[in-house]
């Protein structure tokens, strides 16, 4: 059931929010010991939220389609009175004093809060093999990685534990688990969604956004969380809008660009086949597919890595000498960041501005870009390298190189599932666009979804 379907059912009284919350809690109890998608489950809070939603709807107070819908947030997001660990020993005793901006807005929209979700330690990695809270497992195959860093969010949505989940994305951490777990994931434009109250990894790269089962469900969540927040210095004053694509929305005449170099190089055959299939479908729906050249994404990624390593090392420097607090992979990244000179960080931010200007010219040629969301499907859990086109590559760059450019540029990017590979693992398609054009990306995603592009529920869900 989607958020839209559940919202309709709540309003014709064929189901109650308490029933939805109880079913979600029961499913979490049954499946989560294996999935490890949650860090903290808040059943009392969820049932109280659900009772309030039912009472308000009965009294005629309608807060919109999220009212009474069970959701959860990555453990970076503060929920008042709930542990807020970022999947780390650094923050293991931290209990949030107040809600973060996103949770405030979800509460205002009437959502039912089920708890906080597991993640890669400190949001600094792509596997969600958390050494402190357990490795998140992929609902499609428990021996495969769910991706990260919002791995708990991807697994929880894919397994039907929640209707939607919040994730953060610094180099792909919403879109990678969305791709590996077969869900929709949206990284909005930098500044579109407030970061206030979310533990940071890298201040100028962090973005907050939803993972959901469908494009329209992701849009419903974005409607609730988008908008100016004076407490976030990067928050945009651009007015929020209705992001939900209309039923039967079309993409006829839309110019969709694709960059053969980089974005279609060194990708797994199953990924290429599914993504090109979706591109053909877009063309059949009337879109104009157009090859384009874009400023060198490999260079953008190098700049992004310098910025990420530096900013994350700065955020966590007070703790770095307490080395027992960190997993080995995170510690190595923090050490790397500590070595980067200030001049390199500033040069990276200067190059970033130059790249932003160059990339803006792409939008005079096309309305959006289509790329694979990840070069690979979910790799075996614990595997350090993957084989792509006969060559080996570490999992981290293989997972992030399609997504990271849009963090560096602050541009909106949507991942939707577009098919299965020969191992019956989901393939993610990325749609990226100009600043603040989330509605356009969601329209493209919804049109493809409406035309049948997508994946069935994972086998774990079907068996339960």
């Amino acid at each position, binding site marked *: 059931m989607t958020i839209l379907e559940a919202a309709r059912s709540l309003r014709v009284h064929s189901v109650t929010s308490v029933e939805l919350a109880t079913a979600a809690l029961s499913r979490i109890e049954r499946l989560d010991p294996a999935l490890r998608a949650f860090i903290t489950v808040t059943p009392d809070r969820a049932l109280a939220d659900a009772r309030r939603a039912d009472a308000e709807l009965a009294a005629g107070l309608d807060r919109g389609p999220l009212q009474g819908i069970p959701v959860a947030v990555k453990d970076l997001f503060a929920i008042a009175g709930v542990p807020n660990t970022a999947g780390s020993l650094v923050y293991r005793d931290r209990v949030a004093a107040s809600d973060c901006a996103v949770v405030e807005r979800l509460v205002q929209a009437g959502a039912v809060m089920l708890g906080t979700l597991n993640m890669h330690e400190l949001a600094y990695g792509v596997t969600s093999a958390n050494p402190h809270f357990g490795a998140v497992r992929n609902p499609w195959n428990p021996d495969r990685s769910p991706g990260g860093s919002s791995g708990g969010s991807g697994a929880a949505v894919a397994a039907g534990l929640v209707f939607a989940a919040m994730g953060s994305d610094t180099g792909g951490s919403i879109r990678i688990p969305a791709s590996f777990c077969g869900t929709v994931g949206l990284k909005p434009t930098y500044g579109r969604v407030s970061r206030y109250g979310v533990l940071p990894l890298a201040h100028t790269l962090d973005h907050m956004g939803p993972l959901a089962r469908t494009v329209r469900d992701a849009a419903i969540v974005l409607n609730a969380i988008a908008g100016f927040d004076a407490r976030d210095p990067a928050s945009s004053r*651009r007015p929020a809008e209705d992001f939900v694509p209309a039923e039967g929305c079309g993409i006829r005449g839309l110019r969709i660009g694709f960059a053969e170099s980089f974005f279609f190089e060194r990708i797994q055959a199953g990924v290429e086949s599914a993504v090109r299939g979706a591109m053909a479908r877009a063309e059949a729906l009337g879109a104009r597919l157009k090859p384009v050249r874009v400023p060198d994404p490999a260079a953008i990624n190098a700049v992004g890595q310098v910025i990420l390593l530096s900013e994350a090392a700065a955020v966590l420097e007070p703790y770095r000498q307490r080395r027992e607090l960190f997993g080995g992979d995170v510690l190595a990244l923090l050490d790397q960041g500590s*070595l980067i000179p200030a001049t390199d960080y500033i040069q990276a931010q200067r190059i970033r501005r130059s790249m932003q*200007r160059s990339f803006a010219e792409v939008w005079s040629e096309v309305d959006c870009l289509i790329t694979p969301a990840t070069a690979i499907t979910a790799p075996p859990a614990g595997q350090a390298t993957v084989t792509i086109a006969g060559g080996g590559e570490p999992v981290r760059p293989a997972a992030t190189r399609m997504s990271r450019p849009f963090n560096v540029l602050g541009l909106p990017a949507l991942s939707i599932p577009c098919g299965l590979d020969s191992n019956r693992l989901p393939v993610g398609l990325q749609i990226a666009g100009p600043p603040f054009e989330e509605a356009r990306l969601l329209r493209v995603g919804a049109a493809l979804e409406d035309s049948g592009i997508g994946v069935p529920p994972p086998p774990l869900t079907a068996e339960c």
Partner: protein
Amino acid sequence: MTDWKALAHAAGLAGDEQALERVTQPLETIETVFRPLTESLPPELEPACTFDPQEPAG
């Protein structure tokens, strides 16, 4: 090019060779792409620390 191993030693990060490689090898990889980009920056180019994704082209 930056001698990342010397920097790591100077920062007291030198463990065994494998640990040192784990820290410095990724930096060497990034450096090969990043360093050339820094060589022709116009002096008036501002850093993007206050980042505005709406900034116009050109």
